[in-house]
């Protein structure tokens, strides 16, 4: 049976885009699960309508499964609901005005729901996280050193890591290679080679750019709102 996941992030309060994605997904065969990998909120617009919709899906909507992202973490930190720091990263990068705008963009009635969201999901042998398990703001891109990518996969003990923070759509597959390790201790010396496992990092995009993952064939399809999903297409395996 065909099973596909839809992976969305970076809506930042944009209900219109979310509705268009829901509309696209209704036309896409086999999409059983919708994952929203954070950044549902942002400072640019009021986010309440989108947050209401995510918590109260309309009939026919694919039920979204949400985790929190970088913007949610900043808001929760500023509200004293996450960690000991305020929204220092946002304040440092974009100034006090952005912090104020973020606070104004989300009604406090949503804070409890936002605070209840998980950091990530592990589904099958896939990790789904906004950034990575190293940091919610981990900016993994197609240019990131493969050493770092292997580290992030190793930390989660998964074969595929779906990430969103960079907003880039990419599928980087580790296809081969190895590394020799020579260890000397008080018991003697040993040598072995560690092979590169076949693993992938997938950047799912943001906003109107989203990703469909075909669980059975292990293929990813990068889409944009209104774009045609071609089930006969090859996808990126």
């Amino acid at each position, binding site marked *: 049976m065909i099973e596909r996941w839809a992976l969305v992030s970076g809506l930042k309060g944009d209900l219109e885009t979310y509705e268009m994605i829901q509309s696209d997904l209704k036309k896409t065969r086999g999409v059983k699960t919708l994952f929203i990998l954070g950044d549902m909120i942002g400072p640019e617009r009021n986010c309440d309508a989108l947050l209401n919709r995510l918590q109260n899906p309309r009939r026919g909507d694919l039920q979204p499964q949400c985790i929190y992202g970088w913007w949610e973490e900043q808001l929760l930190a500023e509200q004293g609901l996450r960690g000991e720091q305020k929204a220092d990263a946002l304040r440092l990068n974009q100034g006090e005005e952005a912090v104020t705008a973020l606070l104004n963009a989300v009604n406090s009635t949503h804070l409890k729901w936002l605070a209840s969201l998980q950091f990530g999901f592990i589904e099958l042998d896939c990790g789904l996280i906004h950034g990575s398990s190293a940091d919610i703001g981990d900016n993994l891109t197609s240019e990131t050193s493969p050493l770092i990518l*292997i580290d992030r996969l190793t930390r989660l003990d998964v074969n595929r890591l779906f990430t969103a923070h960079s907003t880039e759509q990419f599928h980087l597959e580790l296809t081969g290679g190895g*590394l020799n390790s*020579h260890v000397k201790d008080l018991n003697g010396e040993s040598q072995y080679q560690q092979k590169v496992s076949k693993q992938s990092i997938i950047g799912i995009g943001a906003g109107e750019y989203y990703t469909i993952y075909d669980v059975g064939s292990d293929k990813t399809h990068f889409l944009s709102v209104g774009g045609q999903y071609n089930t006969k297409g090859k996808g990126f395996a």
Partner: protein
Amino acid sequence: MKHAVISCLHANLAAVKAVLKDIDQKGISDITCLGDLVGYGPQPNEVVDLIRERAIASCQGCWDEDIIEGLNACECSYPSQLAEKRGHLAHEWTAEQLTDINKDFLASLPTSIRRDRILFVHGSPNSQHEYLLPDMNAFAALERVDKAGADTLFCGHTHQPYVRELKNGSIRVRLQNTSNNNAEEKEINLPMRKIVNAGSVGEPRHGSTNATYVIHDDVTGEVEIKEVAYDIELTCQAIIDAGLPRIFAWRLSHGFEFAEQAEDASHVCER
């Protein structure tokens, strides 16, 4: 020139004196310490005083950090709740014993020391609490050293000395994104890097009761792991006299970590 690297002294004065004497006898004057001057052992002030007197360049270890920052700084994972309780006891006892001057000294220690392309840390460049074990994923180990901008990384924390060379590595990748219809394939050659774990002076857990440290020749790159016998009975008696958990003396006299195989074997410290 040769220099010595010591780590994890853990308030064991007899072991520290024996190791420093061994280093002195070899005519080595350049010594770097990778932290954990205190914790578990019965002579925290004496050990810190000695390191200060000898002006030995030191990093801050996880125990040193915890004594200053409080237990909330700890990200360790004790193997059991009993082990965690013992850790609490040792922490409280050590915090009570340490003088303000020595606490200030521990607070002043850097988390890393860099000499050109050599980096000295307690746990890893990421954290004083991260264990770089000799069998950890080789790529992840290489990432720790390479990302820190070092050729050789000296660390401690595991209490098990080793030298690990990572070499002749490569990674092949295939990249597909929205701007290229055809997958782009490439191979990346990885740099050669070295991790040196100095083991532990004051609480060895490598299967022998001897204190360990390493000597590094920065011309040849050679690393020797050294073992030094010391008066274990003296430290064990001092642990008991101080009222610290007797198990600390037991494991000093056996040379490995004692962890109960209890009903809480999966316990992970989350303080």
